[in-house]
């Protein structure tokens, strides 16, 4: 049984200072009317807000200054991201680029790609999508059939990706493609490519989600050319890199704060003196939230020390997403609810958003079943 640890971390004074700055910045944005917290989640897309975040130094915080970064610690970055989510800031445009694509390029990309792309991301001007899933390859990522074949000066990509969030408005997409035929080792022969979006050689078709929103897409590569310097890492190393990033993707506050705006509205709806049953229900959520913060900051501390806490990250995402799915189920029973996306009152709008988006929490970024498989492996069961 692999031991999992959540060693304590203390936030450095610099992180606390940063928290106050971010909080002031967000309060100002909200008072200007630029943000409507109860309608937002970390998927809310606002390119202007992202540019503002770039100006303030809130994107690419851990990257070297020579690539436009700010050389801050994982804990400082953590504080900024959680403040953004807690305030209901529309961080969706730069979220993926900041959380993982940029970090991926920084770790494994070519020097040219780093110089071309990272400063743009850090400025809040360049957004990314992730092309992993395919029509016949979802949780079973290694079954990808999108092919990349060498050509003069680079690669030609053919195939179809699906459930690709923001591909219709991002500047680049990182695609996982097969560069060698399948062998016994099904994880071999996969490579990551940075694909420029917006040209005729990449077709992006909308897939509307259950409440009519347009977030994800089908993306078809038709002899899409990718120059050699936009290969990420060594050919055939794609699987190792994809799984290596998971701790960044799965342990952050975005894995338990997706319905935090509803929790805020719930407290207001209950008033200052709820009865004992309601206070206990509310207090239970507070206990879960506080514990998740403790665990998530602990993982940030491990990332800062250069560790790869993939098991801990899977645990945070599994219980974190369960928590964020529970909030609407509890809220609707404590307050007489009439959920509607344009109901006009913040509680019912936030409730509607939470109910309608919550199925995605335990699917995106690794399904609950995949996570539990990883945890079971850590326990020595498989």
């Amino acid at each position: 049984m692999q031991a999992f640890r959540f060693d304590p971390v203390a936030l450095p004074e610099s992180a606390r200072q940063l928290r106050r700055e971010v909080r002031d910045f967000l309060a100002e944005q909200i008072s200007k009317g630029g943000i409507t917290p109860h309608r937002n989640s970390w998927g809310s897309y606002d390119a202007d807000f992202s540019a503002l975040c770039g100006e303030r130094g809130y994107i690419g915080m851990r990257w070297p200054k020579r690539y436009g970064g700010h050389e801050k610690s994982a804990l400082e970055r953590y504080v900024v991201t959680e403040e953004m989510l807690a305030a209901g800031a529309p961080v969706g445009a730069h979220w993926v680029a900041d959380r993982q694509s940029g970090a991926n390029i920084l770790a494994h990309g070519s020097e040219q790609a780093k110089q071309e792309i990272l400063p743009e991301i850090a400025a809040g001007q360049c957004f990314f999508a992730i092309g992993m899933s395919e029509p016949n390859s979802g949780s079973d990522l290694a079954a990808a059939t999108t092919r990349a074949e060498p050509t003069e000066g680079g690669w030609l990509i053919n195939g179809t990706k699906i459930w690709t969030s923001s591909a219709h408005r991002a500047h680049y997409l990182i695609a996982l493609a097969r560069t060698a035929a399948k062998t016994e080792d099904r994880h071999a022969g996969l490579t990551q490519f940075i694909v420029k979006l917006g040209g005729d050689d990449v077709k992006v078709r909308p897939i509307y989600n259950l409440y009519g929103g347009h977030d994800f897409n089908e993306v078809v590569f038709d002899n899409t050319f990718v120059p050699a310097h936009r290969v990420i890492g060594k050919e055939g190393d794609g699987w190792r890199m994809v799984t290596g990033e998971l701790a960044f993707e799965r342990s952050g506050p975005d894995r338990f704060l997706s319905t935090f705006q509803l929790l805020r509205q719930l407290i207001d709806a209950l008033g200052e003196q709820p009865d004992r049953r309601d206070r206990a229900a509310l207090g239970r959520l507070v206990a879960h939230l506080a514990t998740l913060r403790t665990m998530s900051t602990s993982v940030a501390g491990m990332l800062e020390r250069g560790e790869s806490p993939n098991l801990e990250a899977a645990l945070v995402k599994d219980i974190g997403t369960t928590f964020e799915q529970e909030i609407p189920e509890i809220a609707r029973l404590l307050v007489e609810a009439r959920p509607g996306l344009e109901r006009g009152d913040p509680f019912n709008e936030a409730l509607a958003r939470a109910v309608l988006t919550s199925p995605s929490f335990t699917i995106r970024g690794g399904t609950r079943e995949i996570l539990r498989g990883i945890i079971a492996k850590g326990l020595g069961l498989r």
Partner: protein
Amino acid sequence: MSELKDIFLSTCDRLLGELNTTDADDHGWPRAAWQRLVELGLPAALTPQHGDDGLSVADALAVSELCGYHTLALPLPETLVANRLLALAGLPIGDQPLTLAATAGETVRLDREQDHWRLHGELSAVPWGRHADAVVLQVESDQGSRLVRIAGAGLAWRAATNLADDPRDDASVDLRVEDSQCPPFPAGSPSLLEWGALIRALQMSGAMRKTLKLAVDYANERVQFGRPIARFQAIQHQLAVAAGQLAAATAAAEDAARRTDGRDHGFSIAVAKARVGEAAGLVAAIGHQVHGAMGYTREHTLHHGTRRLWSWRDEYGNESFWQTRLGTLAASGGGDGLWATLTALQDSSEEQQ
């Protein structure tokens, strides 16, 4: 983690793992086992003097987690806390078993009578009451909160047990108490009820760790349909859920253990007891489901942990009690205040390192 802490905890782990608490004297007290704890100096491990040796409060409290893991049927965590509070209040400490009488509702009163006090009321479900050298209480009086130490031997205990057959005894008290026996409760300390909740949270973390280990080992050994049941996803996913609960519980309990000297200990202890208590029932249920009928027998050791989990979650305030405290706090700050409150309480600079 300090080297000293490692040595201390590995020594405790070894001792608690081999301790035999079934050999008892005529009064049912496992005297020899307790003596082994005394030889290691454990009853006084949490006193402030001991901290001078380089062990933090959290390090010493971590013994409670080990007591839970080894399902120790002795009041060591209670004695650790009692001696700490006695020392802080200027009362003598000792190496004999002590206990903490604290319940979620107030049942004992301390009234001033001329030049002394009268302590009267009902002590209810006191851990190892009949075996305790002394009972430590926190009682509110018209002169503030007092720490009271009363001798255990003088009380007419009515023997009772919890779900794990550990003594939880009742006694009526009506005693004359001198000023010197009831100094002011140490300022800045968690309340007695909070201390009780904290040690139970740590003990539950340990008992859950043991329950999960037993279930994982059993799943890997037990063969059905031609393979170990660990190979079935239905089993794997249940144990993954238990692991998530254990991880959350441990994180919450350890966080609270680090903050006992901080200003905001009340919040983190409430979080810990509420979160750990919730996890306890789930982990116990999964542990039993994976063990099948075998785990439902008296002979199997699984119930040493699960029956204590079911008991400890109710002791020193159940989940609902502590959740209500947290809910009251959250409601008082309004929706907009929740995040600021949470970050201020959790990021407090006063936590011990």
